[in-house]
């Protein structure tokens, strides 16, 4: 039984990782083939870094991810506080249902629905290109919001509700109590939400695809356009770098959370 489950694990994880490993391997291939490894070379990496489009896309992706994560975190955290304190049960349920729509809906529907809004409003304003950085930013904030709210809400529920009350008894205004007490208690949730928003925004292709203008290209959109035509191993090189970054981040966060649990244990 034990040998069987081990073989099963190896098989599934093997299938999961082999294609990506192959992609990494062939990004170092000296020829264009994906069937024949002709020799190690960094040719595709130098070619990738000699195209200005790569750097433009990298810069655009980071700008978009940082801006959308910050905006979504601010609006989302406030929203979580507001939703948590809502007295009206039906209103609370209605707001939560609407908030969850972008998570439930397939990305393609979220993407085209926003595109239709932007195109319609842009048409009414008489704009020639209604899609731009700003429409993409709005779209990214929108799909990030539920993730921020859902990471902050549980922290608010866990927090002792007497804490802000005690702060107010000691003379704080509700706003002061929020910044001095509640914010500290929910900070881990806010940070998780922000990280999630940042990563989702970095990674998003479908919604960006429908809401982007021609003048603002992100890395996933660049990859899409690279695989649309004749594919050169530049794309493998770019993918390898992106996978390496994500892999490093995953290991780092895993390591960090382990250290935090250790620290929490030690504190106790």
């Amino acid at each position: 039984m034990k040998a069987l489950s081990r073989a099963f694990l190896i098989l599934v994880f093997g299938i999961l990782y082999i294609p990506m490993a192959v992609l990494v391997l062939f990004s170092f291939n000296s020829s264009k083939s994906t069937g024949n490894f002709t020799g190690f070379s960094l040719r595709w990496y130098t070619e990738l870094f000699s195209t200005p489009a790569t750097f433009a896309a990298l810069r655009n992706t980071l700008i978009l991810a940082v801006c959308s994560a910050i905006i979504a975190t601010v609006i989302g955290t406030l929203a979580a506080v507001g939703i948590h304190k809502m007295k009206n049960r039906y209103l609370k349920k209605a707001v939560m249902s609407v908030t969850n729509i972008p998570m439930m809906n397939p990305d393609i529907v979220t993407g085209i629905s926003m595109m239709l809004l932007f195109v319609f409003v842009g048409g009414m304003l008489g704009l020639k290109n209604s899609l731009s950085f700003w429409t993409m930013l709005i779209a990214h904030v929108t799909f990030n919001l539920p993730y921020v709210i859902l990471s902050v809400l549980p922290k608010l529920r866990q927090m002792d509700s007497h804490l802000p009350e005690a702060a107010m008894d000691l003379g704080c205004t509700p706003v002061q109590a929020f910044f001095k007490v509640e914010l500290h208690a929910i900070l881990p949730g806010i940070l998780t939400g922000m990280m999630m928003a940042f990563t989702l925004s970095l990674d998003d292709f479908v919604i960006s695809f429908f809401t982007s203008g021609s003048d603002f290209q992100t890395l996933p959109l660049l990859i899409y356009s690279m695989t649309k035509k004749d594919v050169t191993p530049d794309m493998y090189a770019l993918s390898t770098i992106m996978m390496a970054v994500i892999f490093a981040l995953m290991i780092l966060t895993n390591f960090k959370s382990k250290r935090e649990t250790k620290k929490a244990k030690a504190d106790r």
Partner: protein
Amino acid sequence: MNRPIDKEKFSDKVKEKRIREPLFARAAAYPHIVWAALFIIAPLLFVCYYAFTDQSGNFTLSNIQALSQHTGTFILSVSYSLIATVICLIIGYPLAFVISKASRKRQNLLIMFLMTPMWMNLLIRTYSLMAILDDGGLLNAMLRATGLGELHIIGTGGAVIFGMVYDFLPYMVLPIYSVMTKQDSSLIEAAYDLGCNRLQAHFKVTLPLSVPGIISGITMVFVPSISTFYISQKLGGGTIFLIGDTIEMQFQNRATYNVGAAISLVMMILILVSVAVMNRFSDDEDSAGGVIV
């Protein structure tokens, strides 16, 4: 934790402060409510608007009628994504179980390796399959080298389904795993005590308790599978068109926006209804939130 507090004495003061609290609290949610109304509700209304109007904005049902041309695509998409979901469940359920039985340290490692692909870009993951399965790819090169001939995989339905399973399998495993680890192991022991063997105990205790996880897993695989267009575009080799491809094509040209909106509307309703039906099977209120992590 609970220190004895003279409630009588404090309640007046607390009440007095509480009157002011909801104002700030309610105002806190306003930016989000406005944002949601403008960018979640309004866009969906625009999908309805476009679905029921023609290019000049007059009411028409022709877009909905035009859907009958795409019935084949709908059936193909639903069957492909159902097959992919079932395969994911068949692989994912035992996988989640095996992981949940491993030692604590091992579990964390395995889950990290399972989650890492989820954070990798979908385009890259899908394309990495191309690099292997393509006619000039690694698999065929190896087959040729061993003299076994060639396999034409890209462009078949199997390749598209394999792509869906490959891309979305972690979304099936994670929710099932997280439900399984929360289960009280003494329930299984009780089942043993009451005369169940291991298999019986699994099917009578573990499986029923895992249903909420299975339901979220099914939704999380089915929804992206049915709406994908990149997987079918690449692994379908330009011969297999799913709903996602059809929608994407309609939105390349302004003249067909309305038909595209109608297709999206139908797909959205289809998905929301099936998700609602599925959720009736699990009465776990928090399952929607548990889905993400």
